[in-house]
């Protein structure tokens, strides 16, 4: 058997913000896919927001939101149509109203009827946040959210993430961006070849030392 993940084990209390660093192919996306119930692991357990993620339980999906490099939005539909569709999929009351409010929250009201295809990367990412938080999830998974964003868009994204975190959501993020990850989170981990090589509270991490250690681990 080939293992993408091996012996990864951790607990996260509600409201925590964990950032996982790691090279491409370290198994970060696999980990997030398992935690969000997309991939069924061959062995092991994953309890997320009180639900077994390895079972493909629809109730779990109501409690988690996922933002990845893929926007998961239909390019030929407008933001409104996209979010109304997702609101209906989540079974929310009054999909129209919920969608409009979510779009307002990420500041895209002016473009509410334009096609998503015409959006910039930063706008897509914001709309993607609106999509992932439409149903007010307890836990957020962010898979390399900063990839492909210009500095302005990425500082805006940080702001949104902070706002989401102070709303007492548990957040789990993967990224390559060390300074960004250290700045945002209260716990950091390094994943190497499918294992957690490092897992610490942010208070015990010193930035320069961490960077050096991270590069060493990457070889």
């Amino acid at each position, binding site marked *: *058997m*080939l*293992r993408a993940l091996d012996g990864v084990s951790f607990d996260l209390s509600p409201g925590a913000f964990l950032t996982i660093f790691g090279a491409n192919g370290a198994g970060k996306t696999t980990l997030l896919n398992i935690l969000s119930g997309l991939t069924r692991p*061959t062995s092991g357990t994953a309890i997320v927001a009180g639900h077994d993620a390895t079972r493909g339980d629809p109730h779990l999906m109501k409690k988690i939101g996922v933002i990845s490099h893929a926007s998961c939005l239909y390019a030929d539909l407008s933001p409104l149509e996209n979010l109304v569709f997702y609101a209906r999929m989540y079974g929310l009351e009054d999909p129209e109203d919920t969608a409009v409010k979510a779009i307002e929250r990420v500041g895209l009201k002016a473009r509410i009827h334009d096609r998503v295809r015409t959006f910039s990367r930063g706008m897509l990412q914001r709309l993607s946040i609106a999509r992932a938080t439409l149903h007010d999830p307890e836990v957020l998974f962010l898979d390399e959210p900063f990839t492909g964003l210009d500095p302005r868009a990425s500082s805006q994204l940080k702001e949104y993430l902070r706002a989401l975190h102070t709303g007492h959501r548990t957040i789990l993020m993967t990224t390559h961006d060390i300074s960004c990850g250290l700045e945002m989170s209260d716990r950091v981990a390094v994943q190497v*070849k499918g294992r957690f090589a490092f897992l610490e509270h942010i208070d015990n991490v010193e930035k320069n030392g961490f960077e050096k250690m991270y590069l060493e681990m990457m070889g």
Partner: protein
Amino acid sequence: MNEETSAPEESGHVLFWLTCAGLATALWAIFLFVPTEKTEGAVQRIMYFHIPSAWLAFFAFFIVFVSSILFLWKKDREWDIYAQSSAEIGVVFCSLVLITGPIWAKPIWGAWWVWDARLTSTLILWLIYVAYLMLRGHVESGSARARYAAVVGIAGFLDIPLIHFSVLWWRTFHPKPKIISAEGLGTGMDTTMLVTLLLSLGAFTLLYFLLLGQRIEIEKTKDEIDHLKKERLYSH
């Protein structure tokens, strides 16, 4: 390591010699024991390995079906290996059926290919399982390959009765060619013919298991190589 492998190897030897003996007996029966059929002549002897080949192919596809179900249920790579190996052997023998069929048909019916129900169904069956093997070749990820293949393995086998009836009724308006059919097995047949056919069927069934064992071993060696490669990747 050696002690572990010695037991299956020994049973493999037994199977090997058993198959050889079975095939030898079948060959003897086909060419020396059984009398020449009166109306069709010597060509009729083709039937004694044409029908067993068809049986073997069908049996192999049935094993694909069962293994596919078990794979989706248990998610155990073992069942995926069985399904794949069996599908390949099934396609090989299905091809042999499609080759020997026309060779028999040419002198008897006067045409290489007749769109007779059984021939047509066999061709469609062959296409389904060739598609199955192609699909396996086109998926990169191992877990997805096994799952997709299993779905096709199940869908393909369930189609067989539907194909059979549709092709049968498709040709109802045309004169039905006279062939040795499964329905006619034993009824219009001489006992020596029946015995020969059964001998041949038995020998081919043994051959199936022999080939299956070989094919499975190849797949397991491949797995071991992949595993070691991955391990080397990690150790660096």
